[in-house]
C-alpha cells in the first residue's frame, strides 16, 4: 500500500488505494514512525527508572522487607505504624512546616528585594543580582559544610562575632540545640534560595508597562503605594509560579538537613526525607533496613508533592485568567 508513493510526489490515485478506516496516509505513517523512534528512548528509560519505581513504591509500602529474602505482605500496617510513630509524626509536621516557612520567606523577601533592585542604577543592580544568586549555584553539600563551620560552637564565626559584641564566652551550639537548629537551617535555606526567586521577580518587574508606574506617579502615589497597587497586581502570575516552585522544593528537603544535622539532635530536625533514608540505608550496627516502612513514608512525600503540583496548577490557572 505504501508502494503507491511514486517519486515526484504524485498523489496516489484513489482507485488503487483501498482506504481502510485504520490506515494512515503514507507521509503521516513515516512521520509517526519517526516520532515514536524519537520519543521511545526517553520513554523507555523513564519507564524503567522512574515510572516502574514509583509503582514499586506503592507495592513496597504494603510489605515488611529488609531487602533480602521474601517480603511479607502486611497491608496498610506501615501507614498505621507511621501514624503512631512519634518520630514520623514530628517529621511529617516538620516537613510541612519547613515547606510553608521556606515558601513564605523565599517568596516575600525576594519580592521586596527585586522591587528595590529595579529602582537602583544599572551597575549596582548587576552587582546585587550576581551576589544574591551565587549561593544558589553551589551544592547543598558545599553550603551545608560551610555553614556548619560558621555555626560551630567553639570556633565558628557566628559565635566569635557575638563574643566581639561583648557577650563573654558565648558558645551556643546552634545546630546542636533543639531550639535553634531549625531556625539555623532555615537561614541557610533562605540564603541559598533567595537568588533564584529574586531573578524571576526581577524579570517580571522588567516586564511591567512603565506607563503604569508613570501614571501612578502623576497621581501622586508614593513608593509603597506603587508597590502595592502597581507592582504586586502585575506580578500575580509570577508570584504564583514562585510560590509553587518554593513549595515543591520545600517538600523535597533532604540534602541540607542530612549534611548539617543528620536529623538530630534527638530527631528534632528529622524531616520525612532524612527519616526514611535512615530507615532504608542508614543501618547502624544491628538495625535491619526497613524498606517497607520507609516506602510508606515515601508515599507520604509523594502525596505532599502532588498536593503542591495541584496547588500550582490551580494558582496559575486563576492567576492566568
Amino acid at each position, binding site marked *: 500500500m505504501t508502494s503507491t508513493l511514486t517519486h515526484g510526489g504524485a498523489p496516489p490515485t484513489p482507485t488503487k488505494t483501498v482506504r481502510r478506516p485504520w490506515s494512515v496516509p503514507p507521509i503521516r505513517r513515516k512521520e509517526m514512525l519517526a516520532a515514536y523512534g524519537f520519543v521511545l528512548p526517553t520513554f523507555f528509560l*523513564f519507564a524503567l527508572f522512574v*515510572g516502574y519505581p514509583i509503582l514499586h513504591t506503592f507495592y513496597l509500602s504494603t510489605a515488611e522487607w529488609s531487602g533480602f529474602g521474601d517480603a511479607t505482605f502486611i497491608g496498610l500496617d506501615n501507614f498505621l505504624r507511621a501514624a503512631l510513630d512519634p518520630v514520623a509524626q514530628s517529621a511529617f509536621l516538620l516537613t510541612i512546616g519547613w515547606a510553608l516557612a521556606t515558601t513564605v520567606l523565599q517568596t516575600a523577601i525576594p519580592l521586596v528585594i527585586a522591587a528595590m533592585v529595579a529602582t537602583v542604577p544599572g551597575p549596582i543592580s548587576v552587582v546585587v543580582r550576581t551576589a544574591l544568586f551565587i549561593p544558589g*549555584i553551589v551544592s547543598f553539600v558545599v553550603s551545608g559544610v560551610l555553614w556548619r563551620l560558621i555555626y560551630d560552637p567553639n570556633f565558628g564565626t557566628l559565635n566569635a562575632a557575638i563574643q566581639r559584641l561583648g557577650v563573654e564566652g558565648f558558645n551556643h551550639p546552634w545546630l546542636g540545640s533543639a531550639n535553634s537548629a531549625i531556625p539555623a537551617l532555615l537561614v541557610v535555606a533562605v540564603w541559598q534560595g533567595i537568588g533564584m526567586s529574586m531573578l524571576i521577580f526581577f524579570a517580571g518587574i522588567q516586564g511591567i508597562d512603565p506607563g503604569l508606574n508613570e501614571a501612578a506617579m502623576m497621581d501622586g502615589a508614593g513608593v509603597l503605594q506603587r508597590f502595592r497597587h502597581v507592582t504586586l497586581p502585575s506580578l500575580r502570575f509570577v508570584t504564583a509560579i514562585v510560590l509553587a516552585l518554593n513549595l515543591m522544593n520545600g517538600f523535597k528537603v533532604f540534602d541540607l538537613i542530612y549534611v548539617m544535622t543528620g536529623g538530630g539532635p534527638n530527631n528534632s530536625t528529622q524531616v520525612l526525607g532524612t527519616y526514611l*533514608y535512615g530507615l532504608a540505608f542508614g543501618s547502624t550496627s544491628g538495625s535491619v533496613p526497613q524498606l517497607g516502612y520507609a516506602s510508606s513514608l*515515601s508515599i507520604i512525600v*509523594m502525596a505532599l*508533592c502532588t498536593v503542591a503540583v495541584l496547588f500550582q496548577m490551580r494558582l496559575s490557572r486563576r492567576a492566568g485568567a
Partner: protein
Amino acid sequence: MSATITSKTVTGRMGRWATSAVLLLISIATVYPFVWMILTSLRESNSVFGGPFIPERITLDAYSRVLEFTGFVGHYWNSLWMTTVTCAVVLALSTLCGYAFAKLRFPFKNALYVVLLSTLMMPGTALIIPVYLQLRTFGLLDSQLGLIIVYASGAAPFSMFLMRAFFESLPDELVQAARVDGAGELLVFLRVVLPLARPGIATVVIFQFLATWNEFLMANTVLQTPDKLPLQPILFSLQGQYSTDWTTLCAGLALSAIPVVLVYVFLQRQFIAGMTLGAVKN
C-alpha cells in the same frame, strides 16, 4: 509646581542612594560566607582560630594537602566525566523527544506527554529505595554507568519539556519545507531544526551540568567503592575526616565550586533566560 517636582526628584535620588546602600549591605552579607571560606583556605593551618579576618600570611598549603591526601583529583575527574556524559545523554534524549512532541503528529501523543511530565516534581528521596532496587536487579549497583542512567532517566523529561517549548517557537513551515525537499524526519531534525536550537541547548546543558555536578543523594547511595565516587559524597565525608583542619576542608569546598561558578559566570545570560523561560512556561 516646579518646586514640588525638584523636591520630589531630590528625595527620589536620596531614596535611590539609601536603597542602593541597603542592597549592597545585603549583598556583602550574602557573599560573606564565601569570602570567609576562601580566606580560611589560604591560612596556615595553625592560624585558623582567633586570627584577624584577613590572614597575616597567605599560603596555598591547604590546597596541596587536599590534593595530596584525599584522592581529590580522581574524584574531580569522576565528577567531570560523569557530568559531561550525563549532559550529552540528556541532550540527545531531550532534543529528539522534545522535537517529536513539538512538531510531529502521532497517536497517543498527549497521553505520553502527560505521563512523562506527571512525575516531574517527584523528589529523589521518594524514589531512592525503588531506584536502588532496580539498579540491583540490573546488576548496576556500585556502577558509575548505573548512576549516569539514573541521572539521565530522571532528568530527561524536564529537559524535554524545555526543548519542546523551544521547538514550538520555530515556525512549522521550516519543517514542512525541508520535508518537501524529500529529507527524512531524522535528517530534517539534524540538519534543519537542531542548528536553530542552540539557545535551548545551552539552557539544557547549563541546567543539567549544575544539577548533576551538585547531586549528592543518588551518588552517595548507589556508589560504594570510594574510587568511583564523585565530589559531593567526598566533600561530605571530608567534613568528618577534617573536622579540625578547616583550611583543608575550605580548600576542598572552594575547588569543588570552580566549575559551577565558571558555568554561571560565562553562561549567565542563557542561564537566566532559560530559567525565566522554564519558570514562566511551567
